[in-house]
């Protein structure tokens, strides 16, 4: 073989490369299911949408519910908290968003957010911190009464899930 080697491309080279390419596709095809099985399965995805009745939450109370395995805060805000959130100029915010953008029109008293700190995922403590909202004890992130990041290592505001009001007291998350 070695003595016959030329720089010319031969039919054999072509077959060699083609076989290799087909082999690589086959290996990738076999490996993908072995990786994809680790992704969220059908039963996890099936829980993707829930309804929650808000009528039992008084002004100034919060509940933490579970959605897709994640904790979600539902807070019935006081007027004072809403006013405090609205008084903040956007220029003071690390991740600028108005209070209106973080709530639904006509339902401004309800703040619904995924309860995991946007830093590394701990659940912040409510009605705490230097901005009267939430304080994350893990590495010291402070959120305000609209759940916006104000100080600490977290890069972003608490995340809002997709949700809508089915009626004034019934909310559908997901």
């Amino acid at each position, binding site marked *: 073989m070695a003595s016959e080697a030329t720089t010319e491309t031969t039919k054999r080279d072509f077959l060699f490369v083609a076989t290799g390419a087909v082999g690589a596709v086959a290996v990738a095809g076999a490996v993908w299911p072995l990786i994809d099985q680790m992704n*969220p*399965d059908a039963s996890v995805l099936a829980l993707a949408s829930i309804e929650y009745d808000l009528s039992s939450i008084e002004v100034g109370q919060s509940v933490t519910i579970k959605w897709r395995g*994640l904790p979600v805060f539902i807070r019935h805000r006081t007027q004072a908290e809403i006013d405090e959130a609205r008084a903040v100029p956007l220029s003071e915010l690390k991740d600028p968003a108005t209070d209106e953008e973080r709530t639904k029109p006509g339902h401004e008293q309800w703040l619904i957010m995924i309860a995991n700190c946007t830093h590394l*995922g701990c659940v912040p403590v409510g009605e705490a911190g230097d901005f009267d909202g939430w304080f*994350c*004890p893990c590495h010291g992130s402070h959120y305000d009464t609209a759940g916006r990041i104000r100080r600490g290592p977290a890069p972003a505001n608490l995340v809002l899930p997709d949700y809508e009001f089915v009626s004034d007291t019934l909310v559908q998350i997901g």
Partner: protein
Amino acid sequence: MAGNSTYNPTNPVEKWLDDRLPLVRFSKEHLMDFPTPKNLNYWWTFGAILVMCLGIQIVTGIVLAMHYTPEATMAFNSVEHIRRDVNFGRIIQGTHAVGASMFFAAVYIHIFRGLYYGSYKEPREVLWILGVIMFVLMMATAFMGYVLPWGQMSFWAATVITNIFAAIPIVGEPILQLLRGGFAVDNATLNRFFSLHYLLPFVLAAVVALHIWALHVPGNNNPVGVEVKSERDTLAFHPYYTMKDMFAMVVFLIPFAWFVFFAPDILGHPDNYIMADPQVTPPHIVPEWYFLPFYAILRAIDFNILFIDSKLGGVIFFAGSILVLFFVPWLDRSKVRSGSFRPLFKPFYWVFVLNFIMLTYLGAQAAEGIYVVLSKIGTAYYFAYFLIILPVLSRIETPAPLPTSISESVLSKSAS
């Protein structure tokens, strides 16, 4: 160093086997007759101690797996069941949990030994790199093991550590879901962590074999860092070093046993005796002690660096603090291996050791006030040591005169 065997099979069975699978010859060459520098001190016994630690983890772990249930509602209780009901369960579980700590104590000593005596230098770079790979595997194994009891610390460690991957731009979120098998840490996460926690120690054992292979090609480094020149510099591994290693193992097992029998939980955290609750994070979460220096580095980056936000920045430094170890053989260009002959290197090395201990302490403190400032200084020195101090020292330092051979240094010591 191969082919130094005096093995001469005499009986016909041994002869027959030797022609087909020279197992006895191999053991004799590598475990008995292997020529070993005669000046090795006790810091050289930690390799053998580490092999013992891995053995202890595997044996106790396989036994634990006979009683443990990897299911989110049952895992916590099954570990309590092991501790309370299973015969000798308290001691076996305690040995496994304490064993992880002792394993890390030994590996840190082993790594710092290498850093002082320049054991990573040519021709032992591959040996060193395999060591860093094992260190990473150990960290992954211990992290996933810590999740298995499914206590509050287990759960929140799993949440925080997997979240680190979410900091990677674009692919972060899909990777996070792939790792967790859900939108949050849950039963799927626990199951796969158990599977991998069982697997990785055996991968580790395979890398140990490569590590020892890579050791037996150039042979051991030694406290003076001068290569073996003649047979006069060496002793046979057995009985000289088998006995020394075994003696060190026994001494090592004394504090080990003290922890297991008298304070099995002292190294852990009380919050881990509360079952995992995805709705409430404990007020003060800390990783196991052996992760603290790296955790302190992660938290030290609480500011944005250009377009890199604080979260990604922390992760880059965290990963970098381990990855930098891979490059040490090329960062330290000094031809002299042993720190004992490097007058400038020595003080910087010891400051590095103290700095590492300080970072361990800081990782356990709340991220506020003076602790944050000190963490930043500690992080800066950690990286400066590898990226600036070692390369610069290797250019400007005048080393002390080296002994011409190992046996000369040994003789001059016994004469004085």
